[in-house]
């Protein structure tokens, strides 16, 4: 159960949320909220931006200044917000497709500018929201609805990409270790520059079903 303080950051009036039972996105939201509470952030001074995807729906559930933008473009919106009001804490939550496919250009340029924003990338190796099509992080050989014979293209290593493009804090955690995810997000927010925290998660509903990993645990193991 979330602590009372964490709970106060939730817009429970907007529940039930859209996530499937067992989805990792909720675990990540909890890690993020614990990090914000631990850093003593104020809701009205915290911006959560997101793009489009199951992961990006997170912005709506958090009681802060939240903006659920267009697919892949959230970092560009967040850049405008941060530039206009540098005193705000800006966290951008996004999916692997959102971040590395349609938003790839915005992602590398946010890294290059090293602007003080923390990107939390929820990598479930698939387009969850649209029903399990391949993403740029779908591993070679994996089955997706658009790669019925197995993915043939190499996938992105999000952390290497971020590092190469100039992000000043880069970390990777998994939903199997939410405490570590929380710590990395905290460090990311504390870093005065562009931070990328990739959190490896699962979409058992689409990726798992097609690749014979039916439970969340099968996906993380």
């Amino acid at each position, binding site marked *: 159960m979330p602590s009372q303080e964490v709970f106060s950051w939730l*817009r429970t*009036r*907007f529940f039930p949320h859209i996530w499937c039972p067992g989805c990792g996105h909720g675990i990540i939201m909890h890690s993020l909220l614990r990090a914000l509470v631990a850093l003593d952030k104020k*809701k*009205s*001074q915290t*911006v959560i931006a997101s793009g489009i995807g199951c992961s990006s729906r997170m*912005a*709506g559930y958090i*009681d*802060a*200044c*939240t*903006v*659920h*933008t*267009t697919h892949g*473009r959230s970092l*560009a*919106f*967040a*850049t*405008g*917000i*941060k*530039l*206009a*009001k540098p*005193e*705000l804490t800006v966290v951008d939550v996004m999916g692997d497709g959102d971040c590395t496919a349609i938003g790839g*250009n*915005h992602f590398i*340029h946010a890294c290059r500018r090293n602007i003080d924003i923390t990107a939390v990338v929820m990598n479930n190796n698939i387009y969850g929201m649209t029903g399990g099509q391949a993403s740029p992080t779908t591993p070679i050989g994996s089955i997706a609805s658009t790669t019925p014979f197995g993915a043939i293209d190499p996938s992105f290593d999000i952390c290497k990409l971020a590092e190469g493009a100039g992000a000043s804090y880069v970390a990777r955690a998994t939903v199997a270790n939410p405490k570590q995810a929380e710590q990395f997000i905290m460090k990311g927010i504390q870093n005065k520059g562009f931070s990328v925290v990739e959190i490896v998660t699962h979409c058992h509903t689409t990726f798992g079903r097609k690749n014979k990993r039916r439970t969340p645990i099968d996906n993380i193991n």
Partner: protein
Amino acid sequence: MSEIAFWQGNEAIAYGALAAECRFFGGYPITPSSEIAEILAEELPKRNGRFIQMEDEIAGIAAAIGGSIAGMKSLTATSGPGFSLKQENLGFAYMAEIPLVVVDVMRGGPSTGLPTKAAQQDVMQARWGTHGDHGTICYAPASVQECYEVTIRAFNAAERYRQPVLIMSDEIIGHMREKVVINEIDPSKLVTRKRPTDIPEKFVPYRPDPKDDLPCMASFGDGYTWHITGLTHNDWGFPTNDAQEIDKKMKRLMRKIDRFRDDIVEYETAFTEDAEVLVLAYGSVARSSLRAVHEARNRGIRAGFFRPVTLWPFPDKEVERLARKMKTIIVPELNCGQMVLEVERAVHGKAKVEPLNLVNGELFKPEDILKVIEEVA
């Protein structure tokens, strides 16, 4: 007190934006609009404003929307190909009701087209470029002076109605130099978005004010927490699939324009009293058209002139009233016939509508238009 300047249209838009208290520009360079960005790159930092050149036009408008969400009056400017790229996020600003001014200095198209030549081929894109229904406020300046003035009014409209407002300039207006009289701005004439007066716990971000049916707007960072989304949403800004809530939102979006149509519509007329032939033109083409009408009058032809300053809302009632007295309405445009469709809709068979189109990168000479006036008179 007033000052005199000798500006290009693009300069006038940049200085008009500053006069309107625009403090944020996000964009990407493209001919023939780049001067707007270049001037603001220099001038905004002097006024504690923000300038950012983004990685593309999609990001340019996104950053400008972000600036507006954080409370700054924001601008983005572009031309043809860039205007196409901006359409998705333009739609976001309509749905999320974010004030913003977008300038398109039109050049020839489609595609890369004619980067250094004038055209008016994007005017229907201004109305319908982004997917989904929405009301449009769009100005088409016809002089450098008007670039300056219309930009101030565009910001006022964006802030008042909480939506993006478009300025469709063109390559001729953008790069032509003319004398501009800069009158001192009366600060009470500048509109700034209505701020919420409710305490944060009671704030409902999209609940319209019963007085004018328009919601107020908080900025990120000024004490309120709220949600912004491009999904169809209820008064709380939260996504909805409820038919009643969807209907309410969509109808209110459209009503913004319908209800205030008469406040927004602007046009100019000349010699319409006794005219039988009307030339209806906008932007740079209005300049050669007015000259042609003068010349026709010298030759004893009862010609008149009508210039929509707002392309949308289109001055349809006004055109319809005039059409009753006209034999023919000539509509010269630097495209294959776009606004003429709107004229036909307004006229509704009450006069003959004669399109006159040019898409070879050249401008209309007054003689070209005069010839048609003489033919139909």
